[in-house]
């Protein structure tokens, strides 16, 4: 069930209406059933997987918390992690590693090596809920969190439908208490939830899906052999597509959660206004970057063991973060570019003795120069993220060295501007006012007018594609 379809609107309306008529315990049961219906809508067989990993983690966590034997606790933690990561590896990475292994054998002269390949479907959202399960079990192991008493509560924490498929990845310490305690109806939260949903729909169906038309045309060669103009059109279009797509998803997820009385963390804060890569990762997919920081970068040693170790940790974290996105070397390279960029940035900052920047001014020419450089570095990395293979990425990037112009490219740039410039202006506006979404702090009637206007824009300008959100596949 995609967030931008009438069936989701009907589903959400029904759930919200029924939900606020029930007491707290029944609300949780209703939400759990609704979340499983939402997930099973793709393929009911996937429910077995999420159900199994939920039950295993629930009991592992309780056993860890109930034990004082350090060795037993470690074994239980290992069992849980192996099962969670094992499911992820089997469903998402098995074929990738086997293909890579076969390619290595081929390169070494062992032709036609018999390598097993699994014919399996990737369960939607497995990367997201696995990370959430890992965070839970690690937090319980470290004593930062009490294990859930109720299987229903824990299952709901994992499967709550607004975040189930593509996040934001919720921290156990943030979401679990909300599940375990009664929610109160808050009309302001509901109101801003509705506005967030409308804002998300614009980002996804109007901006992302229209930009996708250009990105797809450029990357598939339908705008001709790659040249500077085609690479620019394709890369910029994809940059705005993925931003609109994922931030739109996050807005709808957060808005839906707010209608149910939950609060989800902010996932995007004007990322293309970042003045450094470090700043970018404080603004882009915040729930993932903070997860990687807390559960990977810091356990690896973070910045505690000297500069060289820090660079290694940054690179490793981003490489794994890249691989988390998809089973393809292109994602590893994408992560590698960001990891190397973060390390170089840190090195330069240390050599020149510059402190970490806070929020840069919107009127400083220097800050704008940094923004332009960072945006283009991010765009370069997006080429690898978007390309279906390393070869495709390099063929596409080779076009940077070819100058050519056709009148159609001018039309493409104008079409791109039509959809990307408004989002850029909204970001500027939100950045200047420190708001999460347009008119967040405006008087009610102005917010109502903005909401109705957004509905009209969605109705009239949404690209007619039943496009899955990009992050659904991760």
């Amino acid at each position: 069930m995609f967030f931008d379809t009438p069936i989701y609107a009907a589903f959400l309306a029904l759930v919200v209406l029924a939900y606020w008529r029930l007491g707290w315990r029944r609300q949780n049961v209703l939400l759990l059933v609704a979340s499983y219906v939402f997930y099973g809508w793709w393929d009911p067989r996937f429910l077995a997987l999420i159900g199994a990993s939920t039950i295993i983690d629930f009991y592992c966590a309780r056993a860890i918390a109930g034990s004082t034997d350090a060795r037993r606790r470690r074994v239980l933690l290992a069992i849980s992690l192996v099962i969670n990561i094992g499911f992820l590896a089997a469903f998402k990475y098995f074929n990738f590693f086997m293909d890579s292994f076969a390619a290595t054998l081929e390169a070494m002269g062992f032709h036609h090596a018999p390598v097993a390949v699994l014919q399996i479907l990737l369960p939607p959202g497995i990367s997201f809920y696995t990370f959430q399960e890992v965070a839970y079990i690690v937090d319980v192991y470290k004593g930062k969190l009490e294990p859930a008493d109720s299987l229903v509560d824990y299952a709901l924490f994992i499967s709550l439908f607004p975040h189930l498929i593509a996040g934001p990845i919720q921290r156990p310490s943030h979401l679990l208490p909300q599940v375990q305690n009664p929610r109160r109806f808050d009309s302001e939260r509901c109101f801003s939830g509705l506005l967030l949903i409308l804002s998300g729909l614009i980002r996804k169906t109007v901006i992302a899906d229209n930009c996708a038309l250009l990105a797809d045309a450029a990357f598939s060669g339908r705008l001709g052999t790659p040249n500077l103009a085609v690479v620019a059109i394709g890369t910029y279009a994809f940059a705005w597509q993925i931003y609109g797509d994922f931030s739109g998803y996050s807005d709808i997820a957060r808005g839906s959660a707010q209608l149910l009385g939950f609060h989800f963390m902010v996932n995007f804060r004007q990322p293309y206004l970042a003045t450094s890569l470090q700043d970018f990762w404080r603004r882009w997919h915040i729930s993932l970057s903070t997860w990687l920081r807390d559960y990977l970068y810091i356990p690896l040693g973070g910045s505690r063991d000297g500069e060289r170790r820090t660079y290694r940790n940054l690179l490793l974290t981003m490489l794994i973060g890249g691989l988390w996105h998809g089973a393809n070397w292109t994602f590893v390279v994408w992560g590698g570019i960001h990891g190397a960029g973060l390390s170089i940035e840190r090195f330069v900052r240390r050599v020149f003795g510059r402190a970490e920047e806070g929020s840069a001014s919107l009127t400083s020419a220097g800050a704008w120069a940094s923004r332009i450089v960072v945006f283009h570095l991010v765009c370069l990395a997006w080429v690898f993220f978007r390309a279906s293979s390393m070869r495709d990425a390099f063929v596409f990037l080779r076009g940077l060295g070819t100058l050519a112009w056709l009148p159609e490219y001018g039309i493409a740039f104008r079409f791109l501007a039509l959809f990307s410039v408004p989002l850029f202006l909204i970001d500027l506006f939100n950045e200047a006012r420190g708001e999460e979404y347009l008119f967040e702090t405006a008087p009610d009637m102005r917010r109502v007018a903005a909401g109705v206007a957004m509905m009209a824009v969605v109705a009239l300008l949404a690209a007619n594609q039943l496009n899955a959100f990009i992050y659904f596949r991760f």
Partner: protein
Amino acid sequence: MRRPIWILLAGCLAVALAVEVTARLAFDRGSKIQRRMAEEYQTARTIGTGAPDGRTRVLFVGNSLLDEDVRFDRLHDAVAAHWDARRFVVEQTFYYDWYYALKRLFREGARPDVVVLMLSTRQWLRTETRGDYSAYYLMGTRDLPEAVRDLNLNATQAANLAFANVSKFWGARAEMRNFLIGHVMPDLGRLMAFSSTADTTPLVDDAVELDARERIARLNALVSGHGGRLLIVLPVLAEPRDGSAGFMRAAQAEHVSTLRPVPSGTFGLHLYRDAGFHLNPQGAAAFTEQLIPALRRAAAPDPDPAPQAVTPPSVGPAPASARDYGRGVS
């Protein structure tokens, strides 16, 4: 609950109602293509419903290939003495669009003596439709479960199809958006034409024969079940290996006449308006002149279902893997 929430919900509902009402009252009149389509639909659904005038009632259906490759005014005039020829064209449509459109037309009373369907072999074999647009304009509500099975739709897609079937706005929203953006950027069509490519990967005749047979039989059963005869016209594409030989063998086995007035690969590229898919006016004139006598022969009382042309010798790139009917423009 606070008042602004109710006002916002009411405002959103009002927008939804407004676009639905606009779609129902104004869209088919405001857009030239929609107006033409709506008029053709009306003439198609009334074919064969009036008093017989001794002429054979022939309904031509198809997509942009019929629209652009056949000069229908010329064809209509040439056969007017003996045929009541009518046309119903919907762009970007495929086999299933027409299977369900004909089902709906028959149910609404259309009774043509002959149904002429013009699609490329690839369009016959692709398992898709024009989506929401087809759901509203071409499909009947009672056919939706069957369409969902035929098209292998998942639950979300099926729900979308059902919604589009009842909401004209939802069915036509892509066209409404194109209409609006077209006014903001009048030259956008040029970019769309530039960036759309037809799949010209060669097709394997044996695979086409195997896959086409069931579809031909099914459509033929539908048409003959309503007292009509099915006649298939294959367009002339620049790529000679378009699977038409295999397709014609399948049609012959089902006793369905297939016309290939000009074998693919025999027209020069100067007769096409794009890279070998749609003909330009000069090509359309040449194709139509070949089609008219072939149609006359095939629509005679005792038709010969045998193929009327042979596949020219194979040249060009290697064929695609069997059953990969890819993407294409229609």
